[in-house]
């Protein structure tokens, strides 16, 4: 599903600030003009280091200005935090939410080893 528009973040919204590989004085190109590898790395870095998420096990897929986030997260609130951090990192991208919240359903059957 494509996410609804996110509010544009302010610096106050991330006091600790995620480390961003691309941060610096140089003006950044729109996401579709940046080499895909750098976009992916920038998002992975933000998702790993941003104190709101600290997620390492997610896939980031980039096609033009469409960026898909895929994988499992523990809670619904963490899913939205991931999307928010990704949006702040690449505000001009169209984010596609392919995240899944982990199941809380217990399977009591056992595997015999």
């Amino acid at each position: 599903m494509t996410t609804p528009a996110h509010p544009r973040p302010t610096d106050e919204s991330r006091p600790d600030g995620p480390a961003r590989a691309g941060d610096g004085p140089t003006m950044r190109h729109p996401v579709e003009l940046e080499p895909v590898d750098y976009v992916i790395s920038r998002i992975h870095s933000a998702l790993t280091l941003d104190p709101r998420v600290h997620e390492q096990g997610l896939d980031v897929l980039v096609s033009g200005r469409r960026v898909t986030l895929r994988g499992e997260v523990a809670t619904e609130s963490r899913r939205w935090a991931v999307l928010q951090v990704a949006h702040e990192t690449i505000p001009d991208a169209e984010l596609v939410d392919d995240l899944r919240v982990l199941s809380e359903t217990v399977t009591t059957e056992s595997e015999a080893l």
Partner: protein
Amino acid sequence: VNELDPQDDGASRVRVAAVGDLHVGPDSAGHLAPCFEQLAGCADLLLLAGDLTRVGRAEEAEVLAAELASATVPIVAVLGNHDYHTDQADRVAARLAEASVQVLEGEACVVPVNDVRVGIAGVKGFGGGFAGRCGSDFGEPEMKAFINHTVEVSGTLERALAALTTMEADIRVALLHYAPVPDTCRGEPLEIFPFLGSYLLAEAIDRTGADVVFHGHAHRGNERGMTPAGVRVRNVAQPVIGAPFHVYSLPARQAAGGRAKATAHG
């Protein structure tokens, strides 16, 4: 409660629930307790394979301890890399210990389940890569430090597993966070395999022997694998098993002096 398995010549079996990578944070409160409450009906003990918290804050351990309070079975855990991130790993372990969780790091313990002594050797483990595609103790000091840490923790795993024999364990379990084999990492990008585990862990396990290995860390891997010497490996990272835990039924080894032949309880 041990169950008789007609296909297992009457050996006592122990039901081990295992999960890794719970990544508990403040937003996890209330999500896991109802799951752990169900352990009493389907498992004899619970193993936690590291990355218990999001970033290793004591407050996160507090949330996990509260969630685990609903579990009435013994709990044994190792920490994972996330649990070290904010340099409060000792506090995380201490808080969990207060909640009756045995947290192992290069140590062994025995949990009696009725008449079966379940031995667990636990260590976080580390990366380095798998046979033929791994780092070496060579080059820059940083590279040597990286590999030597893996060598060191693999050594502690081997000693902990060896101790289980002295402790007369009927079942020997290796509990890790990092993967000992590439089998259970398949599905992850090949490029990150050296950060997912090390063959040195498998080598330590195969030298001393174990009945099963549980690990986590490789979220996109798969559940089943085996060490080169044939010890079963299970990746129980929560995203892999897709459930709050999986249960494995293990037979007690007949070699342990016959103590484990034992009676079965309904």
